[in-house]
């Protein structure tokens, strides 16, 4: 049988939709484990990235170079360290996940603002806007596509991380995968994986749509190649 037939059989089994360990329950848990770190990371990283991007200078150089270091961190290893030192059921899981979710948002927000056409930034200053007005009325609106891209990248990342977090005892859709692996049942493994894929794609579509909505009309025509 193929991946899809295993997965479909399991997902369409009504029993899996009821009870305390059911699909809806784990789905909500998954959304919680991914959504909360993402939200907090955005509240920190968007203003920080925008401010650094506006100032430029050495801080901006540092930010640009974080990207590769961030990508090299093995999330499984980090989560396991977390489990060993801190345990699973305390709220301390939130801080490391927030820290992991920050870099894409920070980097893209910084880049989005610093790449605004220097002539446009000069004009914004020259017509008499205060620093706050320059940032809010000109730089951020123009940087929206990149800021949203950072949010989208981070969102997809936290969905994947939350999947793996089930390995160290968290709930979420990963629960089906690891319970299935432990009991040698490919059904829930495939089913869990399929649900994760669907969720990830939905998140992608959601953020792509939000990006389109949030981009100022005047900038929509000029498509960004990313």
């Amino acid at each position, binding site marked *: 049988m193929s991946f899809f037939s295993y997965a479909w059989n399991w997902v369409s089994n009504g029993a899996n939709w009821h009870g305390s360990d059911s699909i809806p329950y784990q789905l909500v848990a998954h959304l919680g484990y991914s959504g909360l770190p993402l939200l907090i990371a955005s509240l920190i990283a968007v203003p920080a990235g925008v401010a650094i991007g506006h100032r430029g200078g050495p801080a901006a150089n540092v930010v640009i170079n974080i990207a590769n270091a961030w990508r090299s961190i093995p999330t499984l290893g980090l989560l396991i360290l977390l489990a060993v030192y801190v345990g699973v059921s305390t709220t301390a899981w939130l801080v490391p996940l927030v820290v992991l979710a920050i870099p894409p948002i920070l980097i893209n927000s910084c880049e989005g603002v610093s790449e605004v056409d220097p*002539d446009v930034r000069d004009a*914004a200053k020259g017509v008499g806007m205060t620093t706050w*007005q320059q940032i809010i009325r000109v730089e951020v609106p*123009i940087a929206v596509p990149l800021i949203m891209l950072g949010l989208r990248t981070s969102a997809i990342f936290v969905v994947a991380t939350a999947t793996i977090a089930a390995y160290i005892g968290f709930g979420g859709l990963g629960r089906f995968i690891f319970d299935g692996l432990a009991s040698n049942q490919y059904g829930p493994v495939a089913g869990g994986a399929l649900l994760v894929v669907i969720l990830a794609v939905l998140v992608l579509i959601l953020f792509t749509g939000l990006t389109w909505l949030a981009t100022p*009309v005047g900038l929509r025509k000029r498509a960004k190649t990313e």
Partner: protein
Amino acid sequence: MITFEAVTKRYPDGTVAVDDLSLVVPDGQIVVLVGPSGCGKTTSLRMINRLIDPSEGKILLDGTDIRTRPPAQLRRGIGYVIQQTGLFPHRTIEDNIATVPVLNGVGRGQARARARELISQVGLDENLARRYPHQLSGGQQQRVGVARALAADPPVLLMDEPFSAVDPVVRASLQDQLLSLQAELHKTIVMVTHDIEEAIKLGDTVALFHPHGTLAQVAPPQQLLAAPADDYVAGFVGFDRGIRRLSFVPTGGLQLSPAPAVPADTTVTQARAAGHPWIVVTDAASGAPRGWIETARLEAVSGETLLGQAGTEPLGRSFVAGTDSLRAALDAAVLSPAGQAVAVDEAGRVVGTASFDQLRAAIQAETAAEQAAAELRQAEPSP
């Protein structure tokens, strides 16, 4: 009025961009800062609206040191136009123009209405109001840039190479538009350009910079052409400054001879009878000149033909007596196959001709007058 008092700008690495600059920009005039790349003209301009702050010296706006006012507030009272326009890509044209009034608290509806007025005033179609900058051509974008600078009706306008990024035809049109706006609005304008022709065309006063931040000469364009302060200025101004200077001299004092003008509906026989070596063929109804004919050539043409049907040589151009410049008249004479410039009146009707001799007399009279004026200036203390 803008006053530079011993302004110097020195950068941390030691470069001196502007060196002890003292300059007065009178109200209602266009002062053009011109010079080679790196001469400090743009730096000087950007010190007026505090995008750059001087290392030494001060700048006064209507008698007050500009450093006593918060920068953002200062800049709202100064229009600012730059070469690449810096139009906000995420806003419509009318919202771009309405930027400063809205910052000043004017209601958006009212600001947009004013924006639409300005759109027409700078020579654009009002239908462009709801478009976005990237949908406009370079020349159109520059006009929007000027409209945005004028929106809050500031007394001062700063322009940094505003027309350099467009092609020569569009540039000439924009320059003319600026001159006609200025005739209406009488702003105090400081403009930076590297193009000496533009400086001469637009400036009431031209401030020519040496390569390293000091002034070579500050004078009205005509004086710059007639009496350059040194070899550097003479070289910068260009090789045919003598002839270009003539474009500032009106033809009021030019003596004219009666024109050998013959309407196009006369016959060849009658035309030959008039006895001129060259004939200006004019339009029978309006009296406007059409072309030249050498009478000797008419021998070969049958007597009954109307003059208008015989082949004419091109006119070249004519000049409007009294209002056009000596340069236009000289150009007309050079282009004329007969060696005479055709003078017309405001309506285009031929009123006379000027020969090279008559032009020479007028030019020499002008040179003498300029010489006298120069001697007077040397006797007076400079302002």
